[in-house]
């Protein structure tokens, strides 16, 4: 019960600030938190990045290994995305098999990277129907203060941009950079009391009515979208978040390597 009292007090506090046009950390509604990107963070991975977005800290590693393609895409590499919300990162994360939250996060990150064609999977075919590169994108969240969607998306992009296909180790010729196509950047906004704010903190996420993640590529096209939470959006609000995603995504894209 006390938890709910706390939640209510927190919501009151956040709401009051929002009425005055500000947020508890002083940001504007359309302002992202400080972003720090470290690439090549993990030597045992073929590509890696650590991204700190405000108080959220994620490490993403890319691993590649030779394996069999799926039957219906015999000439394409395979992308597998997995997000581990380990209890180190927050008292709200628990050990054990992935719950609905981590599954949704895994799938939303995956959808952005996959549908935005970050990687040219057709160039990860070794022998059609027989051997392709299997790519694992593992997201390890070590400190959590909200908006995992975007922190992990940025880290995934950064890790991919520095990844190398370990062809030599596998006896498949010389190593080469992971063949990339687009840089699909996600932007997540939440709605609290009819205000739309981007890059929510954990406290903001907890009191939010609705959440929307929009992923765009360089030319402004949309490649993925995910609405969450029990609240609703009007059509206008959806288009407002799309606009924010294009604008802030373009800024974020400049921060990434190569």
């Amino acid at each position, binding site marked *: 019960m006390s938890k709910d009292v706390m939640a209510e007090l927190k919501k009151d506090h956040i709401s009051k600030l929002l009425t005055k046009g500000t947020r508890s950390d002083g940001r504007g509604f359309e302002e992202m938190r400080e972003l720090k990107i470290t690439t090549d963070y993990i030597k045992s991975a073929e590509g890696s990045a650590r991204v700190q977005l405000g108080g959220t800290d994620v490490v993403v590693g890319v691993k590649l290994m030779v394996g069999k393609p799926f039957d219906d895409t015999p000439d394409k590499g395979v992308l597998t995305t997995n997000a581990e919300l380990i209890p180190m990162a927050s008292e709200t994360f628990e050990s054990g098999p992935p719950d609905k939250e981590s599954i*949704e996060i895994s799938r939303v990150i995956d*959808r952005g990277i996959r549908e935005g064609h970050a990687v040219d999977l057709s160039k990860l075919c070794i022998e059609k129907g027989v051997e392709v590169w299997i790519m694992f994108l593992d997201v390890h969240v070590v400190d959590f203060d909200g908006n995992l969607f975007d922190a992990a998306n940025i880290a995934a992009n950064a890790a991919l941009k520095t990844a190398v296909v370990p062809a030599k180790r596998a006896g498949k010729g010389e190593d080469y950079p992971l063949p990339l196509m687009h840089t699909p950047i996600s932007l997540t906004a939440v709605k609290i009391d009819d205000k739309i704010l981007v890059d929510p903190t954990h406290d903001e996420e907890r009191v939010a009515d609705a959440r929307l993640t929009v992923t765009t590529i360089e030319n402004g096209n*949309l490649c*993925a979208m*995910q609405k969450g939470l029990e*609240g609703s959006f009007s059509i206008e609000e959806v288009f407002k978040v*799309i606009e924010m995603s294009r604008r802030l995504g373009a800024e974020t894209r400049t921060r990434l390597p190569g």
Partner: protein
Amino acid sequence: MGGMTTDIKLIDENGRRVDGRTPDEMRPLKIEAGVLKRADGSAYVEWGLNKVLAAVYGPRECHPRHMQNPTRALVQCKYNMAAFSVDDRKRPGPDRRSQEISKITSEALSHVVFTEYFPRASIDVYVEVLQANAGTRCAGLTAASVALADAGVPMRDLVASCAAGKAAGVVMVDLGKEEDNFGEADIPVGYVPRTKEIVLLQMDGDLTHDEYTKGLNMAIKGCEKVYDIQRDALRRRYEARSLDSDIGAPEGVQKEVA
């Protein structure tokens, strides 16, 4: 999107789709309320070649207890596909896709249910896909809404659901299986017609701003048609019940519908 290639002509020279539909034409949709005996409420949806059942149990005591919310009911949807519902047999039990769909369906339904009337309770919604042919999450959400109303659960309105997308370069409503497998984008929408609120929204693929705008509007128009068919089904159900007895008339949204 599936990312598979095909020789199938998704749009013919007359602008007709694989199954002869025009781009803004939905597949045939039949809804029947009250089809199961054991459940408190139920609905059957046949939408093109999709066959989906929804059942509602509750409001009832929420197990395990630590999940209970002291101020409101939990709406918990479980979306499940029968092993034989797809061409390649699906292993029984929840996979990541079905868990994500369960989550966003639960959230969409929570928006319209008066959960505050039933503190600590659980309202359990089961969606079973018996035959799948693209669009099962929309069919499931549509069926679940009707099943909730059939169970007499008080609701602000029904949620209607329909998708739009793009295939062979054409924006179109309610993608069929080939259009889903070989098309370019999909936008499933859950919509509350009376208040014009979007409560479920996803997207994957590649869409320009104009395509997206067109697609979203098509999907919403689709939702409005679905809504009429949902209300018809409940009206028929209400009339059938009234013939049976004059007590036991379902409460909540049906009052409006009748």
